[in-house]
């Protein structure tokens, strides 16, 4: 029986708070992901279209371009990949504030920073993939 080596899943972390961005990257790398990071929506959009990751973890409130705008553009400009790429919101905003909008752009899960540990973020990311 031959074992096909599992391809390493790639995650894009879009987060304007550097400390949080680094923490997320660290935990995903520890868990065997390949992680790339972006500090705002504009950077995130460019990185996403360039790298075509398997999963995008995004914040909502960010300078220059917010998370929702970024995801909308990815869906629009990213072709077949853009329409199907899985995205999880990881934000300080409460679920109620932006949930409707997030569902509209195909967000798989809406996680609130204060309520969700890094381990949980990784677990949910794995389940989503």
């Amino acid at each position: 029986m031959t074992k096909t080596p599992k391809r390493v899943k790639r995650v894009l972390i879009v987060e304007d708070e550097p400390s949080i961005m680094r923490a997320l990257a660290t935990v995903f790398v520890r868990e065997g992901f390949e992680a790339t990071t972006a500090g705002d929506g504009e950077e995130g959009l460019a990185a996403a279209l360039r790298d075509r990751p398997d999963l995008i973890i995004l914040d909502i409130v960010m300078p220059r371009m917010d998370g929702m705008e970024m995801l909308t553009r990815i869906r629009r400009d990213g072709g077949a990949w853009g329409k199907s790429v899985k995205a999880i919101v990881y934000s300080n905003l409460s679920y109620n504030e932006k949930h409707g909008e997030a569902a509209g752009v195909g967000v798989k899960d809406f996680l609130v920073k204060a309520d969700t540990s890094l381990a949980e973020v990784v677990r949910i990311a794995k389940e989503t993939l």
Partner: protein
Amino acid sequence: MEPGLDLTHMSLAHKTQERKREAANRNGGKPLRGIDAEARLRRMLRTSADRLCDAQEIAHLGFWELNFDTGEGSISEEVVRMLGLHPVRDTFTYEKYLTHVAPNDLPQVKKIVGGAFSARKPFEIEHCIVREKDGDLRTVFVVGKIIKNREGRPVRFRGIIQDITKQHKIREEFAEYAQALEGIVGERTSALETAATILEQEKARAEAILEDIGDGMIFTNKKGVIELANRRAADLLGRKQEELIGHPQYETIEMQDEEGIALSWPERPMFAVLTGGKRVSTDPSMPVRYYVRKDKSRFPVAFTNTPVFLHGELIGAIEVFRDVTRGKAVDRAKSEFVSLASHQLRTPLSIISMYAELLKRMDVTNFAWEDQRLYVNEIGEAVGRMAELINNFLNVSRIDTQTLSVEIEEVDIGKIAEQVLKELAPKVKAKKLSLETDYAKRLSLLSTDKQLIQIVLQNLLSNAIKYTPPKGKIGLAIARRPDTIIITVTDTGCGISEHQQTEIFKKLFRADNVKAIESEGTGLGLYIAKSIVLRLGGEISFESRENKGTVFRVELPTGEKQIRERERETKNISFNE
């Protein structure tokens, strides 16, 4: 002509008896056979006369007659009893009658009865008599009627006399009673009048109070009709008092919910009070209610509706209400601030929690010292950020509650500036900014609050660093003038767009271009800086061009005396309106 009475003929029964005796004598003591029918008639007559006699006695009613021509008359047995006469045989005359009249009544009797006799006119009189037998005083009612002969000439008086002593007594008692009653009624009336006066005074006082209280006040009866509304209520509702009083509250004053939908009567608090009999008052858990003015504008209302009972029965309710527009605005500002504050605190809190988690889950066999140091550093920095935020919030709270305490001491502002710059150095370095400072050490002494001036410098300088792109320039200059020290903070940052320049000192305000650079920020820094500068008796101003840079200028008095003076002047200036 003297009237007289033949006592021997005074009674009909007596007369009948006499006739019987006469007839018997005529027949030798035996009744005649031929006159049987007459005898029967006589018996009947006698029976009838006896009955009449009894009736008179029962009714205390006597008959009398007086002949105008002879002046003589007759009286019935009941009259004899009534006057308490001893059996007499003399003729009864008017004169004799007068001897029985109570002395007090004599003139009156003479006038009326004598007058009627002379004029041959009927009369009626009530007077007292003294009974001959026992001297008892009796009241009698006498009526005289004129009897005419066939030719129509008045020939005699015929009348009745009734003993009305009992009735009279009752009447007197009744009069006494009535008088007593009148007295009581009088007393009560005057008591009521006094009470009414007191009530009127109370009412006037209550009305004056009601008119002058700062809140609107409405009294609604149990049918929901407004019976009272003070001036304030009318003013608040943009109506005249007359437009409220006498109208159903529900129809006159519209109450709306937040969405502007009018509440039906059963949904209104007044209805609940009038039906439930319990007080209803606005509290924070209740949805906001609005009253609609006559001009259709509305205001958020706070009210207390209290049922009014009279002898245990609900008669209506009093509503006291006020416009809480201002309070609502303050509430909104406060909750916005609390929301922002908790939001701001979330980020460092999340960072602390994340790095703690990373540390905890580290592979114990892997001694990645460098990583550990990094994580601990992250936690330390986040704690610092949190402390700074909390300090800012506390300062704002102190400013808003006017409890920002100022401790004046001799301060070397150059030293403070150096300390602040030292703290900010890593950020300056990270952005590769060039820093220019221009101040003479030892020349920058002034009397001020060390901690507060430090906060001002921190805020201005950290803004300059934050909003200046990498490789830009920032500068700090301190210059001494005779009475003041001038601090200038310059940057080549994003600047403040012209249309938002009037806003930047307002609490929670963040300029649009700044939000695009950094998503997080409290919008408190400049508000705090300005508040402190004013509190220290100084002034703050700025010049800015978007995308070119900004210069902030703070001028502070150097002397303690000056500070105190200007502090007093500016103490109550509020610039957050």
